[in-house]
């Protein structure tokens, strides 16, 4: 069983007569119960891929399966969580109102929903600011309520798009700890990042994307030499790949 599998997935954006091949022929396999880091520089196509997997954007060609179900099947969405890149939530809602709203979307019965909301607020340390409208939240707090929101339905697979970008060191550490925690709960985590150092400490496996193409994918410990940092490996790889093309 694979958590994620894509087959010749591609997305071409056409804007004003210009074509952008955001993703080309992506064949990805992610096994469950691990943290998978989807890495690559800005504009590599990470967000585009995640959007296609979640049904926010239609693939130009190819298809994908999530938890063995083909994308487009709404059943999949019962079992996944998603935190968009630089997320933004209904600013007039409080944390409780937001989680309650999403809980109702999943049709979680009231009693269970309220219990879950308390658990999640406690987990991300927002219990004390539960009544404050989200417009007054800091970047880090938004990220935390965003993470809490991904877990409301007890998902098997959680997508985080750039969850650590734009946070201060404390915020980064908190988010990373939370992600590790989520994996310990037996869930699969798929997260994208252009910050390699964070990925290195977090991931079991990685895939590296450059200019819309997957250039490598596998277990971190198989890919790296013992003394090599991910950063060094990454730069070497990208240089090599770009060299090949020209």
């Amino acid at each position, binding site marked *: 069983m694979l958590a994620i599998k894509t087959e010749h997935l591609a997305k071409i954006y056409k804007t004003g007569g210009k074509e952008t091949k955001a993703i080309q022929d992506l064949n990805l396999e992610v096994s469950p119960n691990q943290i998978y880091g989807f890495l690559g520089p800005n504009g590599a196509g990470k*967000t*585009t891929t995640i*959007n296609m997997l*979640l*049904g*926010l*954007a*239609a693939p130009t060609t190819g298809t994908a399966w999530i938890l063995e179900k083909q994308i487009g099947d*709404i*059943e999949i*969405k*019962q079992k*996944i969580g*998603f*935190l*968009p890149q630089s*997320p*933004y*939530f*209904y*600013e*007039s*809602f409080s944390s409780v*109102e937001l989680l309650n*709203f*999403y809980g*109702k*979307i*999943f*049709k979680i019965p009231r009693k269970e929903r309220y219990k879950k909301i308390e658990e999640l607020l406690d987990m991300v340390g927002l219990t004390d600011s539960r009544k404050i409208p989200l417009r007054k939240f800091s970047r880090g707090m938004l990220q935390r309520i965003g993470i809490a*929101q991904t877990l409301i*339905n007890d998902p098997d697979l959680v*997508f985080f798009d750039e969850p650590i970008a734009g946070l201060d060191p404390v915020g980064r550490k908190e988010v990373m700890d939370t992600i590790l925690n989520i994996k310990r709960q037996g869930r699969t985590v798929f997260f994208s990042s252009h910050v390699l150092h964070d990925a290195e400490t977090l991931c079991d496996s990685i895939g590296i994307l450059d200019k819309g193409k997957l250039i490598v994918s596998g277990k971190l410990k198989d890919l790296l030499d013992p003394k090599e940092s991910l950063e060094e490996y990454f730069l070497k790889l990208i240089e090599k790949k770009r060299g090949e093309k020209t």
Partner: protein
Amino acid sequence: MSTILTIAQGVYQRLMKSRILYVIVVFCLFAIAYSTLYSAVTAGEETKLMKDIGLAGIAVAAMLISIMVGSTAIPKEIESRTIQTLIAKPVRKYEFILGQFLGAVYVALLSIAIMAVGFIIILAIKTHALNLVMFKPLILVCFEAIVLVAVSVLFSTFCSSMVSSILAVVVYIAGHLSYQIPFLVERAGNVVTKFVGLLLYYVLPNFQYFNVKAPAAHGICIPWGLIFGVILYGAIYTAIMLLVSVAIFKNKDFA
């Protein structure tokens, strides 16, 4: 169904936290109260004028509110990208549209209901009688509001909230004048003009159907048959607007 209602409830909750609605409702009530309680018109003429002013005031406020809530609901979700989090959950696109529509309609009707009750009370104070016949034209104001929300929602599936609301105002005005098109077309010699004229006549909502304010204010009885006919017309028009909205939305990316 319950997904649609959950989304509608969310729209309603958020709208109720914005002050602008209260401002419009309260302003409208004050305007009616002021113009009716202090109008120095000869007796007899008085109540007729009061009813005219009151109904017109509510109709205008209802139009403003309907267009405002209808044309902002979806663009707000798209521009703030809250739609991404929502669509990634088990929500179908048609459920998203219908939820936004119903939430906006609920708020529009609630505002009209508050203004209507206020109006009847003001009338009662002035005339020492309960003018429940006034509810008939108000029912049609409600249905006009529903159609107008649907029109605004349709525009907002492909335009910004600003552009949608301007277009909806244009449709509102044109929809109140369109009943004259057949008379104009008859006189037009050009075939193309005739064709365009008739096309517009059938595509635009015929809002004049919903306007029974003048006869009501003059105490003329409006038959229920007419009211139900107009309601049916409004329901069909609304359904078409929503079907087109869903069709437009179906193939949209939210990246």
